[in-house]
């Protein structure tokens, strides 16, 4: 049994890849066999993710080197004291992201089993979805820069192919093209930055580079390339144009997971700013750049969302504005690092708020996209002007939509409120204007979701939706899991913060600990 427990990080990537490659073979034995196979694969992977997270939260950072004899040999004798193999470094922050990825990946696979029932091309869809899940897990767990680039490309390609999966009159192909083209350009500039770092520090491992880093001009250029490539991948405003296009055209289950894949690039952005360039860059300037990106994302995201007519495009703009909250929270945390006294009072709370918001956003945004998917699955249209009066016979979907909408707007008992409260209070002390903008954006978020709620669920029963039925059972179960978590995290935020968010925030700060975990006594 402990063989499996020791090799969990390796299995975390191997199981979804094996599942993805065998899906076409299993699907020859019929739809039911493939559904069970895909569900089994994703359930095992989520179990691996959760097990790793719990082990990391107990025993600290796990370091797993590919291709060595025993777990303890992080740097085997024949590699001359330098970690040359691919090393997965899972510290409490990656464990925090692993939990998000495992919960949401299980729910969207459960959802897409029934939403893909009547459609064609199912085994291609599930192979790509499992590849996307493996890519996101790899991005979160890896400690090697080039390995991160490979997983970034895998998830971009699988994501772009999934966005363009339902070619309805070519528009989805246009969205997929935009997503793929931008991700490729971002990946190439990311590779140039890896080249800069590799030539100076002779290693691709983040911990080794972090411990050997002394900031030169080349490193600053590499930092800027890293920063903008990853900020573009997670949808910060001036570069956010692909997000509404590709989220609106993708199948809803895929959109819910694209949100998690852009949050994995956000995690990588924090990893670059806090761990790779730990004490090197000036935290004030980079913190303020992150804050400006965050405020821009918040404001433009929500103001562009209100006049939208397509429900998924509206929710995509909200994903952009919520990413702005996370950037604001962690940006304030980073900027406050410049002076320790300010950091102890403001920075830590802002950092916790920003990280907690990543978890909350992944849950309620996944829930909202799944409800939009149910509407699309039953009524066949996403245009709000044609919908109305669905609340009469889609009771459960209405309840789930209400929970998601109240959570995203930050209404007290739900989880959105807890993380936004942390962000408000800390940014107010840091700079009052930021907190005011954040609150105004929260109000506008509530306004736009009231509009969506009214136009979709309220009003009389329209004749064309007279006999619309409730969503099938797997969809409801998937949404129920997310809704219960949204409520639970809202009622007991302190326990979630103490167990998950606080260790993640402290792990993000001490880059020495990260380097020591990989390099052992040597660093």
């Amino acid at each position, binding site marked *: 049994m402990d*063989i499996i427990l*020791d*090799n969990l*990080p*390796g*299995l975390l*990537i*191997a199981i979804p*890849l*094996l599942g993805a*490659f*065998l899906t*076409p*073979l299993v699907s020859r034995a019929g739809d039911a066999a493939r559904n069970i196979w895909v569900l089994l694969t994703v359930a095992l992977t989520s179990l691996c993710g959760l097990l790793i997270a719990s082990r990391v939260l107990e025993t600290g950072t796990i370091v*797993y*080197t*590919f*291709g*060595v*004899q*025993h*777990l303890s040999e992080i740097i085997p004798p024949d590699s001359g004291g330098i970690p040359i193999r*691919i090393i997965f470094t899972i510290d409490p922050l990656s464990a925090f992201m692993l939990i998000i990825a495992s919960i949401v990946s299980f729910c969207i696979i459960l959802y897409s089993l029934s939403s893909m029932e009547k459609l064609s091309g199912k085994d291609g869809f599930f192979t790509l979805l499992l590849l996307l899940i493996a890519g996101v897990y790899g991005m979160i767990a890896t400690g090697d820069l080039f390995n991160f680039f490979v997983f970034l490309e895998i998830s971009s390609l699988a994501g772009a192919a999934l966005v363009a999966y339902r070619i309805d009159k070519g528009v989805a192909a246009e969205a997929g093209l935009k997503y793929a083209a931008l991700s490729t350009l971002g990946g190439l500039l990311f590779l140039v930055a890896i080249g800069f770092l590799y030539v100076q520090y002779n290693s691709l491992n983040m911990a080794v580079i972090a411990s050997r880093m002394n900031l030169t001009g080349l490193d600053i250029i590499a930092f800027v390339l890293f920063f903008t490539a990853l900020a573009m991948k997670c949808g910060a405003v001036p570069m956010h144009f692909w997000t509404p296009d590709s989220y609106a055209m993708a199948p809803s289950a895929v959109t819910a997971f694209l949100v998690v894949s852009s949050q994995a690039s956000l995690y990588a952005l924090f990893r670059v700013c806090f761990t790779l360039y730990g004490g090197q860059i000036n935290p004030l300037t980079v913190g303020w750049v992150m804050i400006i990106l965050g405020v821009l994302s918040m404001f433009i995201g929500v103001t562009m969302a209100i006049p939208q007519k397509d429900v998924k495009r509206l929710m995509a703009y909200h994903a952009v504005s919520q990413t702005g909250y996370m950037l604001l929270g962690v940006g304030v945390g980073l900027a406050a690092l410049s002076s320790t006294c300010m950091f102890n009072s403001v920075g830590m709370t802002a950092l916790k708020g920003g990280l907690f918001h990543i978890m909350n956003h992944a849950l309620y945004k996944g829930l909202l996209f799944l409800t939009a998917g149910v509407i699309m699955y039953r009524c066949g249209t996403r245009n709000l002007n044609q919908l109305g009066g669905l609340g009469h016979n889609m009771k459960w979907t209405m309840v789930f939509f209400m929970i998601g909408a109240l959570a995203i707007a930050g209404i007290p008992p739900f989880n959105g409120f807890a993380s936004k409260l942390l962000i408000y209070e800390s940014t107010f002390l840091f700079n009052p204007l930021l907190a005011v903008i954040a609150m105004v954006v929260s109000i506008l978020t509530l306004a736009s979701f009231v509009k969506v709620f009214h136009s979709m669920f309220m009003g009389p029963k329209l004749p064309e939706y007279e006999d619309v039925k409730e969503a099938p059972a797997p969809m409801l179960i998937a949404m129920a899991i997310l809704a219960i978590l949204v409520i639970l995290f809202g009622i007991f935020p302190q326990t979630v913060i103490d167990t998950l968010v606080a260790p993640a925030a402290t792990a993000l700060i001490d880059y020495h600990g990260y380097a020591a975990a990989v390099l052992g006594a040597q660093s």
Partner: protein
Amino acid sequence: MSMSKIIRTTADVMFMFIMVFGFYIVLHGHLTPGGGFQGGAVIATAFILLIVAHHMDDFLGWFKKDSFQTCEMSGLVLFIGTALAAISLGYLFFMNFLSGKGGLFGQFVPFGINQGFMSTAGTIPIMNIAVGIEVLGGLTIIILYMTSGIQSPEEGK
């Protein structure tokens, strides 16, 4: 859109030589420059040569599309299988459990310049073969889908 008789016959003749050369690159991946992807790409050009030379329907008569799909899938499964085999043997993921054990591909390699021993480097030749098969199937399928895309422009009108 099949070419003239001359081209078709030379293509048929060349097909075998390119295949052999491709597999040579795949198998000697750990000794000479090459390996899974490049060898597989060379073999895929052999199939593409046939697609270009002959009519699409004859080509699909000889090789069915899902035979390439099974090629691709078996290559991928072989690759992940050898990686997972390391875990089942008690080592960590992707461990080279064959090198230095004397068995298949297990001989020791003297450091420095040598004339290249075939059965060395443990699991790397197996991985090369797996990637070679996978790329062979994958690239041919890409070309098949793209050519079938051109074939039916009228359906798009």
